[in-house]
Structures are given as C-alpha cells and as structure tokens.
C-alpha cells in the first residue's frame, strides 16, 4: 500500500473511540502504523460513559483490517510514565515515531458532577497536563530521528470562543474545559517555536460539535434539550449541519501529518462548519 504516510508511525492518545479512533483509521488508511493508548475507565467527575477495553479492541480490529500494525495499550495521559511506557513499546515494535496526536479528552461540562472544583481540576489534568505529558514523552524521539515530524493537538472551538451562553449554563467543568483548550493554543505555539528548527511542526485543531460518544450521550442530551435549550446556541454552525463527523477532523489531522502541510506550524485550524461566523 502506498499512501502519503507510508512507512510512518503515529502515536495517538484517546485511541479507543471517537476522534482518536477516526484518526487511527485515517492515518492507517494512508499507510501509517499506529501506537496509542486510552484510559478505558471512568473518571469520577465524568457523568457520561467513558471508553472501555472493548472500544480499544474494536479500534485494533479496524486498524488491522486495513492491513496496518498497531500497538494499543490502556494508559493514562495524566501519568507521564504511563505514556512513556507505551511510547517505548511502540519504538520497540516499529523503531521510529513521526506523528503525535494529543487527542485524549473528557468533557465533564454538564451533569451532576460538573460544577465542582474536581471537574475543573480533571479538565486541567487530562486536557492540558495530559497534552504536556504526551508531547514531553515524544518530542525527544522526533528530534533524535532528525527527519522532522508533526504534532497535532486536539483543542476545540471552546478554546477560541466562549461556549457559555447563560448564567444557568455556567459550570466549573465547562470553565476548566474551555480554559484548558485555550491554553493548548499557547502550548502549541511554544512547542512550534522551539521545534521549528528540527522541521517538527505543532498545530492545534479546533472542532465544532463532533458526533462522538463524548458529545452524543444522555447527559448532554438531557442538559441541552431538556433543561437548558439556550445553551444549544453555543453549538450552532453557520453551515446547515448540527455536528461534524470525527472523520472530518481526521481528514484535517492527516493533512497536518502529511508533507502537504510541510510549512504549516504554530497555527490553529478550525474545523467548525462556520461556527465562528455566528
């Protein structure tokens, strides 16, 4: 198989389902082998069901169905050694690393536990420190290889515009989610700056509402549809679609990994169906 990414290796966090799975399938379909991890367990402040080992197994099956190789582990982005261990496994198998997709995320923004300091802290730990841990565990390998690379960070439209529309919709979890996603832009710019000399590019992607289990679930539906319909305005796109698909974000990630974007770095790429126009 020959593709834009043939012979390359991608490390992906949040691999079990949603955007992480879509990224794995898209990058594999373009020729890359995959290394990655997912928590596959629940975090107390998250009221919707998080990923499971069965989800991770499904990603494995789908990637192998594309005739690509995959190293898939349970791991926690909040734990730097957990990430390093999976990276080492990937290097043992494939001998190189080219792309880093810092994607793992949680969204305890609405629901029973969302308006707590614990939800705020979990957002910072997973979404911000988790990305820091991911990049710190991987960039030295990219530098050492001397052949460039691409780091893609999953931010959000919540990182560039306020998601809150009403006082009733305010939660500490949503503040934590938004603040962490905004901070990722700064993190990306700093890493982009220091890694540019090594042809390692660092960018953020900013999806609008995306049809994944993190967004499409009973907790979200109850909050928005039943209790706080005004908050739906935060998710309105200019284009006539209620959400985008994870594959739409994966297409952008594949472009950011490929040489087609070889001088694109330190940038924020919005895949928002025009949401920022509203």
């Amino acid at each position, binding site marked *: 198989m020959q593709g834009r990414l043939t012979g390359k290796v991608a490390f992906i966090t949040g691999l079990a389902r949603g955007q992480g799975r879509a990224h794995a399938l898209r990058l594999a379909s373009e020729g890359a082998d995959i290394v990655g991890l997912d928590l596959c367990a629940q975090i107390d402040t998250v009221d919707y069901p998080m990923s499971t080992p069965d989800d991770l197994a499904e990603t494995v*099956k789908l990637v192998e169905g594309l005739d690509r*190789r995959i190293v898939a582990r*349970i791991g926690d982005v909040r734990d730097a050694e957990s990430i390093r261990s999976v990276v080492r496994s990937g290097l043992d198998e494939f001998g190189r690393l080219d792309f880093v997709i810092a994607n793992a995320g949680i969204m305890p923004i609405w629901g029973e536990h969302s308006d707590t300091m614990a939800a705020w802290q979990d957002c910072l730990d997973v979404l911000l420190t988790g990305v820091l841990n991911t990049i710190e565990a991987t960039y030295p390998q990219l530098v050492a290889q001397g052949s460039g690379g691409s780091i893609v960070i999953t931010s959000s439209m919540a990182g560039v515009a306020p998601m809150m529309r009403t006082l009733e919709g305010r939660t500490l979890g949503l503040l934590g989610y938004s603040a962490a996603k905004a901070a990722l832009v700064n993190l990306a710019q700093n890493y982009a700056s220091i890694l540019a000399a090594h042809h390692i590019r660092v960018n953020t992607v900013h999806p609008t509402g995306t049809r994944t289990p993190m967004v499409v679930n009973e907790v979200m539906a109850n909050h928005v549809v039943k209790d706080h319909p005004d908050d739906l305005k935060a998710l309105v796109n200019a284009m006539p679609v209620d959400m985008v698909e994870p594959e739409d974000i994966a297409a952008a990630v594949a472009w950011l990994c490929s040489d087609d974007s070889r001088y694109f770095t330190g940038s924020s790429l919005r895949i928002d169906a025009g949401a920022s126009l509203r």
Partner: protein
Amino acid sequence: MKISVDRDRCEGYGVCAEVAPDLLHLDDDGELVVDVEDLTPEQTETAASAARVCPVAALSLRDAG
C-alpha cells in the same frame, strides 16, 4: 518461538485472542490459555500482533527451548 504470558499483568481482556484465535483463547474462568507451544514463522507473526495489542502489555515472544 513461544508466547509468554505475564500472569500478574493479564486482566483477561481477550483482545489478543481476537487477533490470534488459533493461538490463544480465554477459558470459562476468563483465564488466558496458550494453545500452541512452538510457533511456526507464520504463527509468530500473528503472535506478535497479539502481543502488540494486549492492553496491559502482558504478552511477549521468547525463543523456544
């Protein structure tokens, strides 16, 4: 080559058995059973895939003997 199982790590997720059903299975108690002792070269490739996808890195390959 042989498949080696770290029993302290194995949680019985069974992802390896899905990837290599001819080499591994979970018994009725959810314990992983290695069905093939000495792997052919082709089986070794499949076993390597199974080791790669173990969520808790409990599988490895070692020289027979």
